[in-house]
């Protein structure tokens, strides 16, 4: 890639930091150049997040229809799966699968709820109601 070809498409990262790219100057020598971002990868990130948003929406609908507990919603929202959630909470996977059911979730002790709330960065109230104000 030549120095002039280093893309400068301002993306979400570019607002916080530019990134170092390796490119060649007129004599063919490698130098570093700062880039604001590249549409090709911004789009890659966008479609990935659209897919995640879709999953969050579906999870929310399931919770509202009492087919799943809010744990499902927050798991999707935090881009986790049962494996990752299990290692963060210290619960076994089978326990989490149980907590994903509304009936089991409603009986959870406040100690267990606190563990989930901390992992998801929310309060227990927010955990129960799914009303989260993004921080």
């Amino acid at each position, binding site marked *: *890639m030549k120095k002039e070809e280093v893309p400068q498409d301002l993306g979400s990262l570019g607002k916080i930091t530019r990134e170092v790219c*390796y490119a060649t100057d007129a004599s063919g020598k*490698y130098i570093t150049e700062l*880039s604001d971002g590249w549409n*090709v990868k911004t*789009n*890659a*990130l966008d479609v990935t997040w659209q897919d995640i948003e879709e999953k969050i929406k579906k999870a929310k609908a399931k919770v509202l229809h009492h087919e799943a507990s809010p744990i499902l919603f927050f798991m999707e929202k935090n*881009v986790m799966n049962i494996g990752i959630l299990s*290692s963060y909470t210290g619960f076994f996977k089978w326990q989490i699968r149980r907590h994903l059911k509304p009936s089991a979730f409603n009986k959870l002790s406040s100690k267990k709820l606190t563990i989930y709330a901390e992992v998801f960065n929310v309060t227990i109230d927010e955990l129960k109601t799914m009303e989260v104000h993004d921080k």
Partner: protein
Amino acid sequence: MINNFEHEQSAHCESGVTRNLLKNIGIKKITEPLAFGMGAGLFFAYIPLIKINNGPAIAFRSFPGIIFKRTCHSLNINITRKKFSSRREAAEMLDKKLAEGFAVGCQVGVYYLPYFPKEYRFHFNAHNIIVFGKEDGKYLISDPIMEQVTTMTGYELERVRFAKGALAPKGQLYFAEHKGDISDDQIRSAIIKGIKRNVFDMLRIPGPVAGVKGIAFLGKKIKHWRDKFGLHKAGLYLAQLVRMQEEIGTGGGGFRYIYAAFLQEANAYFNMDELMQLSNEFTKAGDLWRTAAVQAAGIYKGRISAQQDFNLMGDYLLEVSEIEKKAFKDLSKINWH
């Protein structure tokens, strides 16, 4: 105690951390490309069975931690590396080393990194930062991919050091110790060692998923993705490929440009035309990776969707595989003097 640490931004986190840690102990000749090449950082693996964020696992660089380790070993620099099961011990050891005046490398997960933009927070645990001091109860942080230094509270730092999931860092910290400078001969021998190791990783690992064979393997598979997964999922997989290849921390072109820069810098120590020519080959490979990324973007944006578009995408990768195969074969044949 405040370390006289100098933050310098880099393209890739681990080679940047390696360079900055070495510079901090007085070894100033090791640039980011040299660290990357001596550490044999270039790699490729496509492991469809392992899923990351619901997509196949694709890697463009070697296993986390290896660049620092190999670079320092080849230069005879002492390193200490420690994982912890106890969070308290992990914090104590860090504080102790900071008090002794060390800058300390830490492997961290990016999901809870407070200064990262939300869009970049995935459960990716192979990021590297340097902690270089403590002020007013806050840790001073040099993240090599950021332009500026930043700070984190003890809680925030503990959280990212003990991120969970694949490649969990387990509080891992590392630092280097060395007296005096290193000689050009040492650098030369480390360059040769790094290149040989990279030749092995890219050409000789058995099985179809790693090295240049892995690139061709993925190229062939992509041609079937449209029928096998449908446009939506195939698009998401291609987006995953582009993210791993181009995302922050790669220097562009799936690390191929850093490697090309490494060969140019190596040439300064050897003065061999082959190294300059091979540097051009890696530039070519990087350019082609980016052409492939533009093609992939056409697919995941829905601008193009025909089978022939997937065929072309696959062919780009087959071509990259050939270029890199030839380049590494030529590297393996170099007669070092």
